[in-house]
Structure formats: structure tokens, C-alpha cells
């Protein structure tokens, strides 16, 4: 009890401090400044995203190009989380013995037949939605991460409704590796051809065309594939750890 009061005191101080400091950035205030003569990075991006990169979604322009290096790191974080997860949860013979000879199982109980039927119909729809989201990453809200996540939830739906729905790990490994590699190679192409890593090609098309933004949509597609496979992998690993009687 005393501890909780103490914790509440700590939280109060933290909260007040946070509130006070963020009052210095009033909500809704325009801190971007003049877009035509940018003083801030935001203004610069808002100017050059449509003008130079011809990318409608300036968030995408930032994520994939202006700050594409962050994104490469981000993709790596995801990849490493999947690797770490696998290294933490891999099953050894000893584990199985410890658990009394249980086999891993994804879901313990059969799911509702209705949901199973529904899942089958929705699965392609969800995949398509995911792909749509990352293919149009430079035009509409969303992108590689969002699209990848949607695809992974599609797989999640199948995982939890079907005991025996399995992904082909070999294909997953290939997709995962190659898409990650493709990102790096595109970056290296920029380095070799134009002098800086991840630099976009000069031809960036027309604003709001599907084929626009130079290499941005291409990169986002690879990110989408990578994120989709990665997240699916993570879900697969996490769900494949429950013991089941032999």
C-alpha cells in the first residue's frame, strides 16, 4: 500500500514534469514555418516531397528517402527481433522431455466452423488489402510497415483458426532475406551511381501516379514483403511454443 502511494507520488511528479515541458510546444501551433523557404526539416520535406521526389505521401517520402536510413535500421530491428525470438524460443529435445514429451501445437481447441469459413474468404481479401497498402504507400496513408502488418494479421487469422495451417519456412526465409537484401542493394545503387547511400534516382515521375517517386515505392514494396514475412515468422514462433500431448 505504502509502495503504491509512493509510486503514485512518483507518477505525479513525472506527469507534472512532462506536462510542464510539453506546454512549451503548444498543441496545434504551427512550428513548421514557411514551406517555400524552409527553416525546419518539416518544411523542407513538405516542399521537396512533392517538388523533387514527386511523392504524394510526404510521410512516406521521409520514411523511405529523407530518413530512409532510419527505416533500414527499423527493418533490421524487426529482423533482429524475429531472430532473437527464435533464439529464445527454439525447442530442444530436452525441452520436450521436460514437458513430458509434448509436441508443439498452435491452437489447442478447434475454432468455430463459421469463423473458419469466414477466415477462408477473408484471407485473400486481407492479403490484397495489405499489398494494396504497401503498393500505394507513396500515394495514400500507409506503406510497407502497415501493409506488412496487415498481411501478417491475415496469417494470424489463419493461424488461430486452423491447427494445421502452416507457412512454408523455406519460402519465408528466401523472401525475408532477399527483400532485406534488395533494400540494401537499392541503397548501394544510390551510393555507387549518385554518391550517397539510398539516394533516389533522378526520374521520379508525376505526382500521384502509381509509378512515381523514383525508387520509393519499390523500396516500400520490399519493406512490405520483409515486414510481412518477419511478423508472420514472429507470430508463428510465438504460437508454436505451446505443448501438446503426443
Amino acid at each position: 500500500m505504502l509502495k503504491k502511494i509512493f509510486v503514485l507520488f512518483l507518477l505525479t511528479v513525472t506527469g507534472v514534469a512532462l506536462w510542464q515541458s510539453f506546454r512549451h510546444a503548444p498543441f496545434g501551433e504551427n512550428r513548421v514555418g514557411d514551406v517555400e523557404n524552409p527553416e525546419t526539416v518539416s518544411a523542407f520535406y513538405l516542399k521537396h516531397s512533392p517538388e523533387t521526389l514527386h511523392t504524394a505521401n510526404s510521410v512516406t517520402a521521409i520514411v523511405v528517402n529523407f530518413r530512409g536510413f532510419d527505416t533500414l535500421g527499423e527493418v533490421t530491428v524487426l529482423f533482429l527481433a524475429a531472430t532473437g525470438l527464435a533464439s529464445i524460443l527454439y525447442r530442444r529435445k530436452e525441452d520436450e522431455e521436460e514437458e513430458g514429451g509434448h509436441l508443439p501445437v498452435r491452437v489447442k481447441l478447434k475454432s468455430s466452423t463459421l469463423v473458419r469459413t469466414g477466415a477462408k474468404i477473408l484471407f485473400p481479401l486481407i492479403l490484397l488489402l495489405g499489398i494494396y497498402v504497401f503498393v500505394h504507400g507513396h500515394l495514400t496513408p500507409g506503406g510497407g510497415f502497415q501493409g506488412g502488418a496487415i498481411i501478417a494479421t491475415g496469417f494470424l487469422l489463419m493461424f488461430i483458426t486452423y491447427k494445421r495451417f502452416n507457412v512454408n519456412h523455406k519460402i519465408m526465409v528466401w523472401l525475408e532475406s532477399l527483400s532485406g537484401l534488395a533494400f540494401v542493394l537499392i541503397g548501394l545503387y544510390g551510393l555507387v551511381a549518385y554518391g550517397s547511400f539510398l539516394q533516389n534516382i533522378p526520374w521520379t515521375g508525376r505526382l500521384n501516379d502509381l509509378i512515381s517517386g523514383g525508387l520509393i515505392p519499390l523500396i516500400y514494396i520490399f519493406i512490405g514483403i520483409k515486414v510481412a514475412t518477419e511478423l508472420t515468422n514472429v507470430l508463428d514462433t510465438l504460437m508454436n511454443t505451446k505443448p501438446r500431448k503426443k
Partner: protein
Amino acid sequence: MNSFQEVFIRYRELMEIAVYGVAILLILIGLYAVLTKKHLVKVVIGLSIMDAGVNLLFVGVGYITNHTAPIFSPGYEDAADKMVDPVPQALVLTAIVIGFAVTALALSLVIRLYRHHKTANIEQLNSLRW
């Protein structure tokens, strides 16, 4: 027409409380869970709530009254000066993905801890000390 937007302007202070306040509150709630909940999963949930609060704060900071999403979709090609700050949105995307990665890793650790100790009570998790 957009009285919705007028509300945003007129009650800026209120919105500030609503957005920043909720974000900070989320951080604090998450922190509370981290500091007091005994179940490992609840601690991890606490961390996720904290992450959510921070992410919300990011998005909130980038908002500009009466401005729109920084997407130059048809009809908005020349609205650059009417768009909210895109940078925090890009950053928050990264933060979310990283938060997800950490959460997944945390859960895997919880699974292993549970399997090993047959308990998910954080207080019984002290074989390593001093």
C-alpha cells in the same frame, strides 16, 4: 462548414489537455503497471501502454490546427502550407515498429520464464541478485 475544426481552434486548451493529457496519462498508467503489477505479462502490457502514450505524444506534437494530413493526394497538390508536420508521423512509425519488436521479444522471454519457473510472478524472479 467545418465546425468540427472550429471546435479545434476555439477549445485549443481543451484539446491540449485532451491530447497531451491523455498521452501523458497513458505513459503514467503504463509506468504504474510496470512498477506495481506482479504478473509478467501485465508488466509487458504496461510497457506497451507507455509506448502508446509516447507515440500519441509524438503525433500530438506534430499536429497543427486546421491543417491536414501531409499527403499530396489529388486536390491537395498545392496544400503544402496547410499540412501538419510529417516528421513526427514518420518517427512514430519507426517507434511503433520498434516497440512491437521489443514487445514480441519480451513476450518470448516471459514464455521461457514461465516454462522454467512455472510462475509468471515477477517477485519470484530473483535467482540473480547481489
